[in-house]
């Protein structure tokens, strides 16, 4: 029995890392303003927006994937736009997976950030204003550094959650080697083909990876708190 992973296993792991990394970066850019707004607004529809952001937490991935597939398909609104822009259709492409995963992992970015921003409170920003910092300036020089542990938690959760995705990937991406066949799908394939040894190896890699990431997260947290 070969201890090393096969080429297609390695490719699926690399694809998984690329997908999770891309989604994390995109969600840092998109999720931060949403979290900031949710943490500070007194608007009446704050509750509704918060609920929409949290929806992927409870929705079956197949339901989310189904709607996204329709939206991004040839007659869906998103699909029409991407076709007009000359981007073609997103389903069964890497970027289709990125978009779907971003929706699916949104709460894992927004909620820790929102909590971190809320914990800062108004005062440090008021102090910054009395020290001549504009709101944007105060955001980058006061709010972001103070919420740094929140950013770390949110990024790690988003990354690991995207790594662990399966249902949405199957709905949107299918199973194209090197394009949409991520590690979780690869394991499924191995099992379907009764290749239990291969499934074991890849599953062990995923298990160890996930454990180490969470271990790091829980070991760092107290230190981060002390440092701030």
């Amino acid at each position, binding site marked *: 029995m070969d201890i090393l992973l096969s080429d297609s296993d390695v490719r699926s792991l690399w694809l998984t890392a690329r997908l999770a990394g891309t989604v994390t970066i995109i969600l840092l850019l998109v999720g931060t303003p949403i979290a900031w707004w949710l943490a500070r607004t007194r608007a009446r529809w704050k509750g509704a927006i918060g609920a929409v952001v949290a929806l992927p937490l409870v929705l079956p991935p197949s339901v989310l994937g189904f709607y996204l597939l329709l939206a991004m398909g040839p007659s869906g609104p998103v699909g029409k736009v991407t076709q007009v822009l000359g981007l073609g259709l997103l389903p069964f492409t890497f970027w289709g997976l990125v978009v779907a995963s971003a929706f699916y992992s949104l709460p894992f970015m927004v909620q820790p950030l929102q909590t971190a921003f809320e914990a800062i409170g108004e005062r440090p920003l008021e102090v910054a204003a009395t020290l001549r910092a*504009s709101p944007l*300036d105060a955001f980058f020089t006061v709010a972001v550094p*103070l919420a740094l542990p929140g950013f770390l938690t949110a990024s790690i959760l988003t990354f690991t959650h995207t790594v662990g995705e399966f249902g949405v990937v199957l709905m949107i991406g299918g199973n194209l080697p090197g394009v949409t066949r991520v590690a979780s799908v690869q394991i499924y394939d191995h099992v379907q083909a009764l290749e239990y040894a291969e499934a074991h190896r890849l599953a062990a890699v995923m298990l160890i990876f996930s454990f180490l990431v969470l271990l790091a997260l829980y070991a760092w947290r107290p230190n981060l708190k002390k440092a701030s």
Partner: protein
Amino acid sequence: MENIQACFRLNLPSFRLDVDLDVPARGVTAFFGPSGSGKTTLLRCTAGLERAPEGRLTVAGEVWQDAHHWIPTHKRPLGYVFQEASLFPHITVLGNLRYGRRRISDAARVSVDQAIELLGIGHLLERRPERLSGGERQRVAIARALAVNPRLLLMDEPLAALDLKRKQEILPYLERLHAELEIPVFYVSHSPDEVGRLADHLVVMEAGRVLASGPLAETLARLDLPIRLGEDAGAILDATVGTVDKPWHLMRLDFSGGSLWARDSGLPIGHRVRVRVLARDVSLADQLGHSSIQNVLDGRVDAISEDEHPGLALVRLQVGEAMFLARLTKRAASSLGLKVGKKLWVQVKSVALLQ
């Protein structure tokens, strides 16, 4: 235009602020009143942290707010010291001091070095705020507010969160600030002690309204206000140390209208001090006899009013140019035949040195 004119009307569900003020743009203006009287809200409106929909604010001729203008907080040339020091925890003391400094362009009256020296925090610069005591933190917060070269310094009960010892540690720095800098200060407090020590101008507030506004000694001697000061009703005098009686450990404090003996506190002759004489420590007599009370002044009844208890009266006395308040029972007032204009001996039992 060396004045600050502030007019704010603000309706919150639980609270109403309705003030129209005109105070000098120099020295310390103290805002005094019980909690919930609107002092802090007034300060926040002045800073632009709270927006009163109907408001006007002019600082030394410059409009900060009126019906057509609204200057946001970060563009107002002010310094703000909050009740809790609120230092940025992620940067050092020096980083805190430089934070605002880096964001101003105009040449400064107060340099960062000067602010550090003035507040005595030179040895703390590399520390993180978490490693400072409460008093040190508040001194850094004051220096940080000074370093942005404010044209108006707003202080919201900067000592309220500190214990007595820490207060005593900071008050001398505030007095130095007052003596050495030309920056007008709005100082919110509910401590008569702090007000007596620091203020030049006094604004008394209650339930969102201004009850009185005027020079400190004059305002404190108003008979319609001391009722609200309760046990702390009294007069403030500016005096100089005239002479020291070494054998008896006493010093003579001269003021416009006479002099008072107080315990020698080691101050040099000629030193200016501020003293407070509480109304309950003043008694009146129509003839002089032997008494343990050493301070006897020649006074004249200026006004008589009701005090908070039906059995008590509050009497304002003119001694030279100075005003004293005396609290006595109505029976005593009646047996002395007190009436406005009557000349009397004013006996002062105790004098509190404020600085």
